[in-house]
């Protein structure tokens, strides 16, 4: 059979971000795939060395357009560790609240993208409509829908009064009902199952070999979640379940993400019920003592790692960002091999790539 090369990207309806895939297909089967990256490389790590620690908050929030808050959270944790700062409990709780809202927002966005890519536009419309509720809450909290600028070194810059808490609680209740509907659709809709079950399966061995993290790894049965395994922010004070599945296919990844969304909703409720009084931030000095630190946090897509080295001045000597998409990208070629062309959108969406994160 003749081989044809199908270009997918850098501009293609399948991709929301620039990434270039070359699929080599025989008939309707993909036999080989190659990939080119770097279309959204902005040199953020280098830029970070030229800016002060405070300015970097603004810069690092823009590594990613979806999980913007978790990037500054990880960065702040690192810098606070270098400064030996103790963030007040209320500040930590609010930080965690934003992290969880962001997870809901990211997972709903992802569900919409998956649905759109497998030709299920109704679920796409509903998921993105419901996501608006989260965006509204975040806007209410911080003034920003995507970039919140909530984190500062030493805490957060926002505080909640009881009116805001009530308003958020009402919105979350509304969202809960709608997320339940989406869970119902994901669990029971036959065509959605037909397009995702058994598609793009990754074995536990494969996951370990590529060091994959987050929902992709949990979908294959790797029970790992930093929020429980190495609690940061206020996660040690909250109770939640780490969702795992065993299939490793797109269907398992979908179930993991929708159930995580439900867990995150419950986490948000817990935070609002149990918000400790007090300050939200402490003052931090502009200069950071010499040293190096590794900070980690569980982003919606998995573990994000920041390595920060300080030379004692007011700007970092080196910042290295390792995003969860990096190991996921290394799996893409393997997972695209020997599948149907029609399954490519499902597999690519199932991994939930964030190209901007990986390119930095």
């Amino acid at each position, binding site marked *: 059979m003749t081989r*044809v*090369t*199908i*270009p997918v990207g850098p501009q*293609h*309806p*399948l991709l929301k971000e620039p990434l270039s895939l070359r699929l080599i*297909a025989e008939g*309707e089967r993909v036999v080989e795939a190659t990939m080119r990256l770097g279309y959204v490389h902005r040199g953020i790590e280098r830029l970070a060395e030229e800016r002060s620690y405070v300015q970097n908050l603004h810069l690092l929030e823009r590594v990613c357009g979806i999980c913007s808050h978790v990037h500054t959270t990880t960065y702040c944790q690192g810098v606070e560790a270098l400064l030996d700062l103790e963030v007040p409990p209320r500040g930590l709780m609010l930080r965690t609240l934003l992290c969880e809202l962001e997870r809901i927002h990211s997972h709903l966005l992802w569900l919409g993208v998956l*649905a*759109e*890519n*497998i*030709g*299920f*536009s*109704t*679920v796409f*419309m*509903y998921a993105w*409509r419901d996501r608006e509720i989260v965006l509204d809450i975040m806007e209410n909290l911080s003034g920003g829908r995507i970039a919140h600028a909530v984190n500062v070194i030493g805490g957060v810059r926002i505080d909640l009064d009881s009116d805001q808490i009530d308003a958020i609680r009402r919105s979350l209740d509304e969202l809960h009902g709608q997320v339940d509907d989406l869970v119902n659709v994901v669990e029971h*809709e036959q*065509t*959605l199952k*037909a*397009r995702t079950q058994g598609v793009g399966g990754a074995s536990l061995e494969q996951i370990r070999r590529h060091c994959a993290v987050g929902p992709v790894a949990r979908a294959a049965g790797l029970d790992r979640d930093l929020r429980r395994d190495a609690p940061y922010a206020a996660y040690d004070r909250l109770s939640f379940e780490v969702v795992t599945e065993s299939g490793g296919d797109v269907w398992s990844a979908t179930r993991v993400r929708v159930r995580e969304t439900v867990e995150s909703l419950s986490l948000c409720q817990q935070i609002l019920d149990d918000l400790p009084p007090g300050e939200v931030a402490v003052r931090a000095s502009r200069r950071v003592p010499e040293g190096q630190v590794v900070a980690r946090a569980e982003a919606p897509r998995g573990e994000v790692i920041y390595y920060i080295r300080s030379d004692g001045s007011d700007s970092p000597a080196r910042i290295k960002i390792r995003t969860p998409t990096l190991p996921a990208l290394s799996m893409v070629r393997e997972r695209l091999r020997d599948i*149907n*062309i*029609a*399954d*490519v*959108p499902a597999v690519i969406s199932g991994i939930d790539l964030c190209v901007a994160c990986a390119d930095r």
Partner: protein
Amino acid sequence: MRELLSVLVTLFIFPGVAFLVACALLFEWIDRRTIARLQARVGPPWFQPLADLVKLLSKESILPRQADRPICTALPVVSLAAVLTAALYIPVGGRVVYGFEGDLIVVLFLLSLPALFYFLAGWVSVGIYSIIGGSRSVLQYFSYEVPFLMALSAPAILTGSWSISDIITQQAESAWIVLAQPVGFLLAIVGLIGKLKRVPFDIPKAKSEVVGGPLTEFSGRKLALWRLVVDIQTVAGIFLLVNMFLGGGDLTLLQGSAPLGLARAVTFSIKALGMLLTLSVTSVLYARLRIDQLANLGWRILAPLGLLQLAATILMGIG
């Protein structure tokens, strides 16, 4: 002179070309609006399909250098001619431009021509997405067309006539064929969805896989005509199904006096709108199938059901 004028009016105004195009645009709007409302969106205003058409008609038409320009230009025109001709033989509320014994076969043939031209469009416009989309559309054609043809020949066998007008008259005298052949009716709807490449059978033009399918390289006037082809095909398909299974303009489900004039037109419109809404609702309910899943559905489920329906019809005829 008067006769010539009347022929021209039937051919070009009602129920001819002008009426069909107006219906096509109206149906497209109702369809888009319904889908939008069901998906919690607002949807386009009523003139949007017309505006889209005018805009596309006035835009520059670009083709790749290696594409076969004359054929690419001819294909949408010929397809449009085929669906318009097919529509002329389909009675609308009792009015028909031209009918004869055997017109059902001509209509079915003309309605399936665009599928072939659609494939050719992908093939001659040389883009990789076009070629994959084109080959998919042929695979899809074989999956839906067989059950569709079986479903639509069953009423003809039941009534013993291959003239659409005759089949309508006989339904008015006895009962709507959908009562005798519910399975056939469902098969015809599924087949029509496949023919129109609507969700969940929009496989040849799945945008996350093959961008625009066979029409990826088409733009401007050519694309506008292709879109009009699909719209008129929708109208023709719906009218055909209403005539074949739902008794056309017949008001009563069982035997009754056939209504005349306005009542007949209104009944026909309501049925056609009902069919359109069925298509719209179906297309919000499902995710797109894969081509192998469609082939399975077509050959393992739909085709045997079609055969059963045919066998039952023939047995009824003998009994």
